[in-house]
Structures are given as structure tokens and as C-alpha cells.
């Protein structure tokens, strides 16, 4: 077995970096997991295949190898909380402000300065703990995690070690249909509170590094998953669900590019059927969902290849960096034993005590979470594709819900939002909160079309005006005199006029060119300025064309 594989590999040395294999799939991934606006970003995002080798052969070989192995994936996620101030001092934090301007003796770790915990941090931690179905520790504490690094002014990070604020939860999600769909439940080991370090910049030429301490002391929640994921897609969707949850809760902007949501991934593989875990490798520098997916798939095939070549001893416990440009992981540092962080209880901070009343009040204030929304939309009869689209962005979901509560038809409302409205938002680079069309007017528009007051075509025209300028459906219909003509006599008159003005075409039609019906219908519609009821128009037109003029 191994030797056959080995031979294949010799023929295709590029297999070691099977970049091109994943690029095709990424494209699709990108659009499902990015927000609604980037639905069609697929094409631009595709990587041109870097190596000219028969893709089929390549893919088959890798698939064949990876099929014999099972990957075990766990994720540590750091979520930066959107509090106004830092965790233990009142310094304001704003992403992108001038370096070293938001600092004070506490976050700089100057002697004698004492930390005081921000109450919002506890509130946000409890919210996330509840949203992730965790058990909360009513009594928890802070610990010092000690290490020396220039972005850590105190020489230790205030964190939670043996008693995290939340433990033993889970997250539910639905995989997009493009990836086979299906429901997944992934365990959450723990959620704990800690502070961020400063930012370290490495100057290109000089023999020094630069430190910006604005971020030092900003509150983070670290979420540790159970090693429940098996593929890059599952891991990326897990991260995407965490992003949705923190955004729904309003505790973080979840922005990966700014580093407000950071994922470190642990990957190990083992031959299918083996119960003990393989050596685990940590991957860092993953700043998009698609890079999580690609980095993991790359890492799985790298490890599977080493296994299949009898070189599994070369899989060592280490931290690897994902290189976006090269589409591969590279060694960052090898680990030798566990780091000794010398944790001990933070003597400068009191115990964190949660009362059951406090937890209840927060529990009662939680918004409807993504999973609950998806299940509710599903029960309404929407397709999974609609469900995933609508529940992906909390604002879109709220807009949809508001449209429904104004009485709109469920499927029609979904179609308008996912179709014309989404396209408009994408073109104009707007979010749903920026558009001028209110959910009430969208409901009105849908009702007007349904009742036949206006035609669907005119509905679309009104929509673009409402999106850009606002106003009301009724007002626009009146102002522009757009009410659909549903009077058979009036439509008949217009048909008569068109027929009499086009004797040649009438002759051809009656001579057998029945396709010309479309021409007549078009002319009548034009004459009515698009207002004629299309069903009625066609019915009367047919009668008149086939009967006597």
C-alpha cells in the first residue's frame, strides 16, 4: 500500500504542496461564510492553479491517501470584547488609534498600579457562556500566567486557569448545502476571561522591534472547543458560527481582519480505526474562514502524506504558520515539553461572584440566537439555503422578521430580500440598515403585487426607487399613476389599437407564425406603460388574435 502511494508521489512531486487542489473549493466557501454581500465574490477569489499537472490525477491520489486517515481538530478562539474601556483600567480602546496613546500605569504594568475589573467584561462572559450552553461557575477567580515577552508589560497575563467562568457547553450549526449540508454539534470545553497583550511590530530592516501598548489589557474571551471537528469545512463553519453568536450578542464585532476574532487550530490525524490520537500540530495566523479551511485541509494532507510514506515520525508537536501567499503551513517553532507558565491566583483581584439572580436577568435579556432563528425559519417552511442566508446576519434576520410582522408572505419576503435587495446592497456596498426601504414598505409592496394592484414588473421598478430614495409604496403608485389595469374593456381597447396598427404582423400570425403573440403582447404592454395585467392581457389578446378583428 505505502509503496504504491510512494510511487505515485514520485511522479507528482507537487503533491507535497497540494495548493491547487483546494483553490477550487475555496471559492465557494468564501461566499458562503462571508456575509451576504460577498455572495458573488467567488470568481475573484479563485486562485489560479499554480502548477500545470493533471488536476484529476492529483486530486484522486490525495483523496485516496486522506481517506485512510481521520483528522481530529480542536480550535481555540480569542474574541476581543467591544467594551468601551480595557479589562482592568479605564483606558478607552479604539482599533486603529495612534500607537501608545491609550495607556495608563495599570495597563503598562507600572509598580503599585492595581487592576479593577470592568463590570461589562463579566456581563459579556456570562452572555457568551449562556449562549454556548455552558455551565457557569458562580465563583471564579483570576490567575497570573507568567511569561516574558515585550508586548506583555507586566511579565504576566491576567487570565483564568483552573476555574474558568464557563465550562462544558456546545454549539449547533448547519453546514451549507454546497458542502453536503447536515447538522453538527461541537462541544465547548471552556470559556475564560483574559487580557490581550500589546502589538509587536517587526521593523523590516532595523535590529529592533516596536511595541504599541494600546491593546494591552483589552478584554478577551478565550473559547476552547472539544476536538470534535473532522474537516476544514467543519472547523471554518464552527468559527463562522462563533462569529454569528458574538455578533448577535453584541459583545464583539467579530472582525477577523482587525484581529477581534482569532482562531488557533490544532490538527492531528490517525489511521481510521485507531483510537489513540496522533501528534497534534497547532496552526496560527488564520485570519479568514477560508484560510482556516484551506490551512486545515493542507495540514491534513501534509500529515497524511508523511504517514503514508512511513515518515510519521516527522510529524512533531509544533506551531506552524499559515502562509496565505504560498497557501501552505510552515514551521514557526517546535515545542519542547509544556511551557511552565507558573500560574497562581491573581492577588490583586477579588473572587468573581455571580448571583443566580444576575445570571437569570442576563439569561432573560439574551436575543434570539442564530441556532434558534434557523430552527424557527426552518419550521416556517423556508429552504435550508434561505434559512442560512437570512440567519447569517442578525440585521438581515431582524429586517426579515419585521417584514413578516407587517404581514408579508414568508417565501415572497425571503425572495425579495435575498434577490433584489441583496443585489442592491452588494452593488452599493451598503448594509441592510443603510437602505431606505423600510420592512413595512417591503410588506406593502409584496401585498400590492399579490393583490394585483401593481404588476410584478412595476413592483421591481418601485423597489429600486424605494431602496434609493425611500418613500411609501402607496405614494409612489399614486404619484406615478402605476395602478395595474385590470379592466378587460380597457385592455381590449389597447389590444384593438395595437392590432389595427400592425396589419402585416396580424396576417403573419394568422398565417401560422403564432410566435408573434409575444410581439403583440409587448406592444400592448408598452402602450399601457407596463400597467396592463399580464394574465388578462394575454387571455384577451389570444381571443382577439384568433377570433375576428
Amino acid at each position: 500500500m505505502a509503496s504504491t502511494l510512494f510511487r505515485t508521489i514520485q511522479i507528482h512531486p507537487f503533491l507535497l504542496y497540494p495548493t491547487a487542489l483546494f483553490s477550487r473549493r475555496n471559492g465557494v466557501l468564501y461566499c458562503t461564510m462571508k456575509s451576504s454581500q460577498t455572495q458573488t465574490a467567488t470568481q475573484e477569489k479563485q486562485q489560479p492553479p499554480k502548477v500545470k499537472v493533471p488536476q484529476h490525477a492529483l486530486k484522486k491520489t490525495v483523496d485516496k491517501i486522506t481517506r485512510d486517515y481521520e483528522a481530529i481538530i480542536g480550535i481555540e478562539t480569542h474574541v476581543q470584547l467591544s467594551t468601551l474601556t480595557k479589562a482592568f483600567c479605564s483606558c478607552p480602546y479604539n482599533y486603529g488609534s495612534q500607537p501608545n496613546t491609550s495607556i495608563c500605569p495599570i495597563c503598562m504594568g507600572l509598580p503599585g498600579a492595581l487592576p479593577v475589573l470592568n463590570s461589562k467584561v463579566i456581563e459579556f462572559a456570562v452572555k457568551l457562556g449562556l449562549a454556548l450552553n455552558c455551565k457557569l461557575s458562580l465563583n471564579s477567580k483570576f490567575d497570573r500566567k507568567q511569561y516574558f515577552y515585550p508586548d506583555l508589560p507586566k511579565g504576566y497575563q491576567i487570565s483564568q486557569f483552573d476555574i474558568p467562568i464557563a465550562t462544558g457547553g456546545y454549539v449547533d450549526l448547519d453546514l451549507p448545502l454546497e458542502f453536503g449540508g447536515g447538522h453538527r454539534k461541537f462541544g465547548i470545553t471552556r470559556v475564560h476571561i483574559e487580557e490581550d497583550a500589546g502589538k509587536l511590530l517587526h521593523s523590516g530592516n532595523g535590529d529592533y522591534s516596536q511595541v504599541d501598548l494600546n491593546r494591552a489589557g483589552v478584554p478577551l474571551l478565550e473559547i476552547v472547543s472539544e476536538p470534535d471537528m473532522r474537516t476544514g469545512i467543519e472547523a471554518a463553519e464552527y468559527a463562522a458560527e462563533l462569529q454569528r453568536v458574538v455578533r448577535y450578542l453584541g459583545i464583539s464585532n467579530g472582525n477577523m481582519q482587525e484581529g477581534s476574532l482569532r482562531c488557533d487550530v490544532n490538527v492531528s490525524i490517525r489511521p481510521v480505526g485507531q483510537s489513540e490520537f496522533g501528534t497534534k500540530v497547532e496552526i496560527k495566523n488564520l485570519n479568514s474562514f477560508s484560510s482556516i479551511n484551506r490551512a486545515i485541509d493542507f495540514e491534513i494532507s501534509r500529515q497524511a502524506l508523511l504517514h503514508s510514506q512511513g515518515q510519521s515520525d516527522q510529524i512533531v508537536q509544533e506551531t506552524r504558520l499559515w502562509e496565505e501567499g504560498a497557501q501552505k503551513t510552515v514551521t514557526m517553532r517546535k515545542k519542547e515539553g509544556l511551557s511552565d507558565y507558573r500560574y497562581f491566583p491573581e492577588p490583586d483581584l477579588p473572587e468573581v461572584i455571580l448571583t443566580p439572580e444576575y445570571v437569570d436577568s442576563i439569561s432573560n435579556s439574551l436575543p434570539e440566537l442564530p441556532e434558534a432563528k434557523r430552527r424557527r425559519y426552518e419550521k416556517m417552511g423556508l429552504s435550508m439555503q434561505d434559512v442560512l442566508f437570512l440567519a447569517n446576519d442578525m440585521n438581515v434576520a431582524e429586517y426579515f422578521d419585521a417584514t413578516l410582522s407587517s404581514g408579508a408572505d414568508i417565501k415572497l419576503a425571503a425572495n425579495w430580500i435575498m434577490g433584489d435587495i441583496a443585489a442592491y446592497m452588494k452593488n452599493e456596498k451598503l448594509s441592510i440598515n443603510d437602505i431606505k426601504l423600510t420592512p413595512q414598505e417591503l410588506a406593502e409592496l409584496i401585498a400590492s403585487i399579490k393583490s394585483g394592484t401593481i404588476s410584478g414588473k412595476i413592483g421591481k421598478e418601485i423597489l429600486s426607487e424605494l431602496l434609493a430614495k425611500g418613500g411609501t409604496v402607496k405614494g409612489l403608485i399614486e404619484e406615478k399613476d402605476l395602478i395595474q389595469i385590470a379592466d378587460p374593456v380597457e385592455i381590449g381597447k389597447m389590444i384593438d389599437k395595437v392590432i389595427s396598427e400592425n396589419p402585416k404582423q396580424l396576417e403573419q400570425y394568422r398565417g401560422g407564425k403564432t410566435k408573434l403573440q409575444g410581439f403583440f403582447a409587448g406592444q400592448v404592454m408598452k402602450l399601457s406603460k407596463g400597467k396592463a395585467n399580464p394574465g388578462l392581457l394575454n387571455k384577451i389578446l389570444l381571443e382577439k388574435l384568433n377570433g375576428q378583428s
Partner: protein
Amino acid sequence: MGSRALLMLTNFNFKTTVSSFGSASNPFFLIKNNLRTRNFSTKTRSSLQPPDLPGLAETARISLAPNEVEEFAPKIGQVIDWFGQLQAVDLDNVEPAIRADTEGDNLREDAPQTFENKEALIASVPSYEEPYIKVPKVLNKE
């Protein structure tokens, strides 16, 4: 510095407990049994092991010459023994506490306040080049 050093030492003793936490394969188990683990460590360690001084110094980023190690080792051993007296306290009927103080929360409103004397903060930085703090080049941890 004195109190910091003591903390380091207490922490060192704590280490055996810590690593037994770390080796637990199921972190959930670890949390549930946390309090018991503590009692356990208190009871079984009747005599404390002296620290590996060169290792301790390295972790604290302190350089010690071999003769200094020789000089300090017995002194630190004495401190450890002093802490060791705590092991004699009978805790059988005492509720475990996760913190020494019992007062609990002392929380702050999330209201921004800018620290006024920033110039003094910056002035105390040993090496500063607007707008960054300059440090020796670092690329990897450890």
C-alpha cells in the same frame, strides 16, 4: 521584589499541583474535582522538595553564577521549609476557598477615562521612538 520572589517560590511549590491539572486529559473533570485536588496536595506533601535553583532562576530570567546558586540554595530551602509549616495545619473541617479574601466583587463601570500624565509614562520608557516603544528584535517566543 521581595514579595514577588516569595510568590515565585510559593508558586514553585504549587507546581506539582499545576502539572497534575495539566496532565488530566479531560479538563472538565479537572474543574469538577478542583477542590478535592487541592486538599489532596495539601495533605500528601508532608515534606517539600527543595527547588532546582538554576531552573528557577532561568524561569525568572535571573542570571545566577554557580557560586551564587550555592549561596542561595540553602536560603531558599529555608523559606520553603518555613512555608512547609503550613502543611501541618489541619484542614479537614474547613471549606475550601478559591480566594483568601471573601468580600468579592469590586467592579468598575465601563466608562472611559483618559490618563492625563501620559508624557510621564512615555518619559519613563527606556527606549522610545515616536510613536513606538523600541525593544530588542524578537521573532519567536521562548
